[in-house]
């Protein structure tokens, strides 16, 4: 298909320029003009009030999905314990379900894991679809896809959320292709469109430089994977629901993969995604000596040390402690950014922190735009001074 502008109708309002994800529309002599890099994605079509943007694509009819009900969450478990993402998804699902006046369901797959159902209900599940089978003990792509395919076809949910973990990012695309629906990856925001009642899925694109909101109008369930650490966990104590058992028939030869061994590598310290306080360092910290001071500050504040991509690449902190678009998203109570300029890729991972402190010697560093409190100064003076004063404080209390 192609997209073109009826120049006579164009009012030069620039709405389409803003809407174009590819920067492929410019204003020339007061009229919109489509450039060569247009991908015909159609994002500009609806924003034009003058109907000046035209396409040769035939209008598509949106099928009737009024029988599609329920917000589903894939409750990821490993070794019989629930992943935190399962509870985060249930938190978001409650919010969506209230708006839609529908119910929240959790999908629990594994072997002898029925004891987890109660926890799922205590965090928002109105009911739990339980599939237990020795072949589901550890996650395997085809086995899990098969079971979820059966559940989706039988119960016809409206929305299906899966965590964007290494398991979820393997499973969700496979399920989406199998049941014939679209899928939006790594969402950081989910809302219901008040007019259409559809799920609006917002996610970072182009390495976090742009946020894109995506709709899934032509297929159900509306599927998203959701970035861990972004959604809030909401407890619903006393909530009770039904456990609906799904009979599992799996043939080993249909699965195609065998797990020979699972190796857990030992982790030091607390997972930064769950830390209450994070002391993060960037290029400005200098080196290992600088990080030792941050370490000291972290101990005093009861927190963990994290950092930017650069300091991970330099081997100053472990990969698991990287914050940002290619690392982890965190939402601690307190985030102290030391010597971090605040590139958009980094900010994307820490903007949900409750309070942010920025320490940097460059007053124009973008990190100050997201900080609650900024200190412009040499962190080699400021951080040791903080350590000093906090130690004095502790002495004073004894």
């Amino acid at each position: 298909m192609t997209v073109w502008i009826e120049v006579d109708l164009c009012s030069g309002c620039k709405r389409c320029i803003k809407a174009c994800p590819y920067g492929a529309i410019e204003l020339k002599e007061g009229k919109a003009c489509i450039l060569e890099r247009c991908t015909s994605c159609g994002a500009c079509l609806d924003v034009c009030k003058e109907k000046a943007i035209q396409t040769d694509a035939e209008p598509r009819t949106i099928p009737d999905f009024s029988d599609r009900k329920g917000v589903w969450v894939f409750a990821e478990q490993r070794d019989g314990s629930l992943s935190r993402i399962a509870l985060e998804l249930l938190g978001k699902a409650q919010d969506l379900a209230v708006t839609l006046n529908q119910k929240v369901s959790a999908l629990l797959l594994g072997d002898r894991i029925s004891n987890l159902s109660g926890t799922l209900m205590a965090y928002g599940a109105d009911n739990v679809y339980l599939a237990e089978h020795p072949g589901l003990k550890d996650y395997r792509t085809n086995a899990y896809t098969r079971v979820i395919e059966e559940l989706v076809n039988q119960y016809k949910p409206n929305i299906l959320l899966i965590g964007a973990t290494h398991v979820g990012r393997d499973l969700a695309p496979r399920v989406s292709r199998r049941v014939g629906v679209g899928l939006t990856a790594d969402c950081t925001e989910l809302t219901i469109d008040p007019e259409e009642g559809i799920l609006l899925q917002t996610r970072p694109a182009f390495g976090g430089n742009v946020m894109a909101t995506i709709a899934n109008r032509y297929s159900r369930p509306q599927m998203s994977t959701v970035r861990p650490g972004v959604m809030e966990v909401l407890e619903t104590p006393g909530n009770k629901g039904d456990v609906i058992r799904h009979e599992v028939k799996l043939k080993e030869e249909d699965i195609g993969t065998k797990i020979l061994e699972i190796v857990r590598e030992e982790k030091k310290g607390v997972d930064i995604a769950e830390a209450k306080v994070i002391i993060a360092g960037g290029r400005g910290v200098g080196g290992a000596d600088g990080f030792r001071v941050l370490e000291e500050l972290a101990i005093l504040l009861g927190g963990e040390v994290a950092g930017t991509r650069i300091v991970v690449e330099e081997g100053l902190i472990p990969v698991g402690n990287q914050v940002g678009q290619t690392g982890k998203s965190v939402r601690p109570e307190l985030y102290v950014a030391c010597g971090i300029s605040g590139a958009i890729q980094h900010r994307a991972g820490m903007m949900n922190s409750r309070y942010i402190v920025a320490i940097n010697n460059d007053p124009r560093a973008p990190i100050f735009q997201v900080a609650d409190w900024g200190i412009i100064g040499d962190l080699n003076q400021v951080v040791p001074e903080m350590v000093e004063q906090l130690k004095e404080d502790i002495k004073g209390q004894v």
Partner: protein
Amino acid sequence: MNIIVMIKQVPDTADVKLDPKTGNLIREGIESIINPDDRHAIEAAVSLKAASGGKITAISMGPPQTIDAISEAMGMGVDNAILLTDMAFSGADTWATSFTLGKAIEKIGKYDLVICGRQAIDGDTAQIGPQVADYLDIPQVSYVCEIEEIREQTIVVKRRLEDGFERIECNLPAMLTVIGELNTPRYAHMARLIDACNDKVHIKEWSSADLGVQANEVGLEGSLTHVVKTFAPKFQRQGETLEGKPKEMVSDLIGRLKENRLI
């Protein structure tokens, strides 16, 4: 061993900047590169071929300029390449893209392995590998960080997890999506790269007609998801810059942290 490598040409997002006035992406002067994870996929294919023979076919969907990425892949040791290019393919989401790539792989015919990068840096979805695998009805292993062994009808690989890895034996033919940890990609061989530029024998262009697909099955029209709007991320807070000598600023800060019960 016949291997198909799926690659994508992407803008180098490390270079992407926003126009401070309009909030739009500045696209001028941004280099197009082979997607970083896909370079590791090419390397994996080339080293597997070196060990056990066979043929490597690269396949990429994109505008005609994608020929640059294909030439580079040929320079790295790929034998044949197919460029899927057609206006009808543009604007595709992962549903339409995986359909198009799946159709092309069916047309190529017999293969033992399909390898691609875990994800592309412009979209970061990591969906195409698993979706193509499902279309082809073959098993997959994603996040592959080591290829241990090829047996008669299976392959043994390590799959990276957040807190370790698992060793998986996967039936062939299979789809692998690979991560940077797997290997160090070689540089393209200059002479091969130049030859590839005009190589009509080993590089073919396929359109929607060649794949026998309808316009409404591919591209924007064949997509199930659509971009509703895009915007620059907003992170602004009502920040306050503390003043004074380092000692004063620090005690001011500690006071505020206490006030908010952070310490």
